[in-house]
């Protein structure tokens, strides 16, 4: 029997086996609910080009990025070898020689075979010598099998080319294969049988790789590109709405996830970058964003698996998430962890499965519009200690409508900051007013805890109250309110211009409307709140304010997009610390202590609460003061007991 029919049979059998092994995934994707991800093709392609062509996120981890780029590029060059290997014998007479298969293509193949081996060597070095913690929980066998197959594919192609040179072929465009040929001559092997064996080993390894792919993380070779192309283009801060065709608000089985959410599961490369940045994982809670995805992925292939929520994914896992979005920011293939967690939480909430503490907070929010259980009449009580009245935006027009938020309004640890912000606005001549008892919790974290119905009630109540007012812009104290008002309320057709108080203050400083007495240039550090920075891109205004106030900024290693969550978001602030080995806030304070600065600047009321508690718990409150960026600003005409002096005196701490 000649080689051609044999190769046809083997190839077709391998392709058929591969399709058969993929059948369940194909079926589940075909049957999944729809998702509208086909808009804006150019923007999608542009992002895809950056993600893959420039390896943008991949290169954030240098070694991984470089080794992946080497393997990735070499794969494409060596694909010409595969084309030749199969083409020449499936279709006798086929050859790449007319376009340079024996000259420049041969040279590239030779060089990239070596680069592929270098990439492979680095991968092996990283996985088995460096052993990054992010690989914990990833399949080690899967990686090892692929390393072996790549080694087999590359070495067989070099041996095949070398044997051909021994048999008299021209080796002038194949420097590496010529070296292999020298080695073969030394070993005095017979040219033709060696070439044949190497060829069939090469073919066998490639087909084995193909058949192996559907069950392995190397699916990403086919799925990463579509998964990145179909990525979410909505603002990061908009939580996915409940699709109208869904009967209940939540998701109780994998089949209820739309095709993109399911494609996410199949695209995971188990690289663990999400796990490495997850505050819940770092604190010892039973959540690894990577394992969340791989557990669901494995369940997708296993029809006998237990129920999704409370089975495949434990309830504690879902409640551990702070919705800080670090995982999604880190993921090189644009997997969307949060929509899945929120949808599964929605199911738990709908079933009434919430912890007693969370139930209290949600009941308070239902009844009173704030999580603390305080009467709404007391919401604006902080204004009583101001030396001036605050306008009621419900009864008179204002330029800026200030949405104060629960913590800034009610928490005694934050009220001083709220008053300071009011004083700064007044000093700058801002015409502002508040909603008094008509304000409700913005619902940002209510939504992310999975309480969609309550979120709708809160949002609608706020939107109704806001629409009754005459104003130009909204400013919020809390980054969480900022996010809800700016991004989530769009679901209700409410498009407000919303900015964070740090943005407004920075604007006032630029306009010269705040007469600041700069401090002496002491060095401080700054914590980027998740919902201001990563979610809404508010990185620079707080930094500008710190500089304007007369301080030098020393950023922590994890800053800006890589900021480390305080642990309060996504409703975690309403839940207990059970199972927490190290609170994320304390982890963060330790990071700041390493810098040797004396002031830890925050720009979120929850951060003031969380980090004040953390410095107290660690006994370092005297060493590192937690100060809101507004408190740093000292005005020239301001009374003596203001800003920095008070902070230095320690009186503000508490």
């Amino acid at each position, binding site marked *: 029997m000649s080689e051609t029919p044999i190769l046809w049979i083997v190839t077709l059998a391998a392709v058929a086996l591969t399709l058969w092994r993929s059948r369940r995934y194909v079926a589940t994707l075909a049957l999944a609910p729809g998702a509208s991800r086909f808009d804006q093709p150019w923007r999608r392609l542009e992002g895809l080009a950056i993600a893959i062509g420039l390896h943008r996120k991949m290169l954030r981890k240098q070694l991984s990025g470089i080794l992946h780029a080497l393997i990735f590029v070499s794969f494409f060059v060596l694909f010409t070898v595969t084309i030749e290997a199969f083409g020449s014998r499936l279709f006798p007479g086929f050859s790449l020689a007319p376009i340079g298969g024996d000259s420049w293509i041969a040279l590239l193949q030779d060089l990239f075979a070596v680069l592929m081996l270098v990439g492979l060597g680095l991968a092996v070095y990283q996985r088995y010598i460096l052993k990054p913690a992010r690989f914990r929980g990833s399949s080690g066998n899967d990686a090892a099998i692929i390393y072996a197959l790549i080694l087999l594919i590359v070495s067989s192609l070099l041996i095949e080319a070398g044997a051909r040179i021994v048999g008299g072929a021209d080796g002038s465009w194949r420097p590496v294969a010529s070296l292999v040929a020298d080695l073969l001559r030394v070993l005095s092997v017979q040219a033709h049988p060696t070439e044949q064996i190497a060829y069939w080993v090469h073919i066998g390894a490639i087909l084995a790789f193909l058949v192996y792919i559907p069950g392995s993380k190397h699916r990403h070779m086919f799925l990463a590109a579509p998964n990145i192309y179909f990525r979410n283009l909505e603002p990061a801060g908009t939580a996915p709405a409940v699709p109208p065709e869904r009967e*209940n608000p939540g998701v109780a089985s994998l089949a209820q996830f739309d095709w993109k959410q399911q494609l996410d599961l199949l695209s995971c490369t188990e690289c663990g970058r999400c796990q490495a940045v997850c505050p819940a994982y770092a604190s010892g809670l039973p959540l690894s964003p990577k394992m969340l995805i791989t557990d669901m992925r494995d369940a997708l292939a296993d029809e006998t698996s237990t129920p999704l929520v409370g089975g495949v994914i434990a309830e504690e896992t879902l409640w551990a998430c702070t919705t800080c979005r670090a995982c999604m920011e880190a993921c090189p293939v644009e997997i969307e962890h949060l929509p899945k967690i929120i949808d599964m939480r929605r199911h738990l909430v*709908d079933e009434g499965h919430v912890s007693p503490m969370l139930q209290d907070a*949600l009941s308070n929010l239902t009844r*009173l519009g704030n999580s603390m259980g305080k*009467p709404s009449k007391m919401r604006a009580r902080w204004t009583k200690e101001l030396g001036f009245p605050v306008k009621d935006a419900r009864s008179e027009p204002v330029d800026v409508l200030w949405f104060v938020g629960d913590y800034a309004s009610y928490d005694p640890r934050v009220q001083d900051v709220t008053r300071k912000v009011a004083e700064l606005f007044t000093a700058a001549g801002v015409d502002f007013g508040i909603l008094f008892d008509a304000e409700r919790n913005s619902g940002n974290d209510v939504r992310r805890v999975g*309480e969609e*119905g309550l979120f709708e*009630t809160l949002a609608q109540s706020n939107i109704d109250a806001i629409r009754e007012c005459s104003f130009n812009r909204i400013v919020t104290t809390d980054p969480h309110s900022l996010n809800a008002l700016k991004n989530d309320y769009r679901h209700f057709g409410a498009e407000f211009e919303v900015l964070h108080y740090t943005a407004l203050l920075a604007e006032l400083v630029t306009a010269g409307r705040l007469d600041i007495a700069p401090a002496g240039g002491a060095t401080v550090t700054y914590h980027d709140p998740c919902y201001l920075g990563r979610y809404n891109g508010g990185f620079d205004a707080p930094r500008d304010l710190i500089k304007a106030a007369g301080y030098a900024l020393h950023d922590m290693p994890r800053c800006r997009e890589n900021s480390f969550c305080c642990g309060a978001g996504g409703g975690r602030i309403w839940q207990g610390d059970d199972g927490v080995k190290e609170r994320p806030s304390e982890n963060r304070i330790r990071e700041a202590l390493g810098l040797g600065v004396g002031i830890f600047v925050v720009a979120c009321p929850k951060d003031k609460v969380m980090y004040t508690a953390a410095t107290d718990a660690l006994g370092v409150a005297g060493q590192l003061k937690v100060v809101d960026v507004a408190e740093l600003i000292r005005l020239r005409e301001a009374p003596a007991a203001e800003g920095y002096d008070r902070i230095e005196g*320690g009186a503000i701490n508490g």
Partner: protein
Amino acid sequence: MKILVVLRMIPDSAGELELTGDGRGIDREWLDFQLNDFDDHALEEAILLKEAAGATVVAVAIGEGSNRVLQMAVARGADEAIALEAEADGMIDSRAIAGSIVALARSKAADLVLCGVQSTEDLFGQLVPYAGARLGWPHVSGSSRLSIEASALRVTQERGGGIAATYEIALPAVIGVQTASKAPRYVSGSKLREASKTAMGKAASEPAGFERSAEIVALRLPGQRGTGENLGDNPENVADRLASILAAKGFAGV
């Protein structure tokens, strides 16, 4: 089986209590109202009985914010919701509402009336005996578990010293619930919104049916008992201040 549950709205104790001008009532104008906690348990027990043995649950709410609480009751599983007309801005007086509850129990052909064992405005738990007496039905107060065993009701009642007595009572009956067999469930916002589409019934108040006996002539707010002093967090200042307080109180001869 038909269960009637009484839900009373009481002033939120986290608010600031102020007296009315005549000093005989609490000024309700600036207060938030919430469901009496024991009544919340009564509702839960009714729903648990419905789930275990099958029943129709009629929720009757009294006071400001009744509609909101009735929505919640429907979302949790009540079949019918009725807002009982009550004296505006008044205390929910068990003696006064007993007649209305009795009338509703009869008109709805209830087999079982459940209400919280007490409320902040009925600290001695008089609604259950009043209603039981007017209906001529047996009544037990302070239940911690209800179950239906062969068409009779079993009531576990908490007593002093951790002792629990279990009664078997023939229906119809009136029970004052202290705690439900399980903590009141959480009902999600989406279910609440769904329930808001249910029509709420109304019932007029009925005469109390008791002779006038006593009425409130004066109400007094909790007395101010002196406030604590925050000693701050500077250890030296705290120590100095503590020493001087102890000296002033005669505890130490500094």
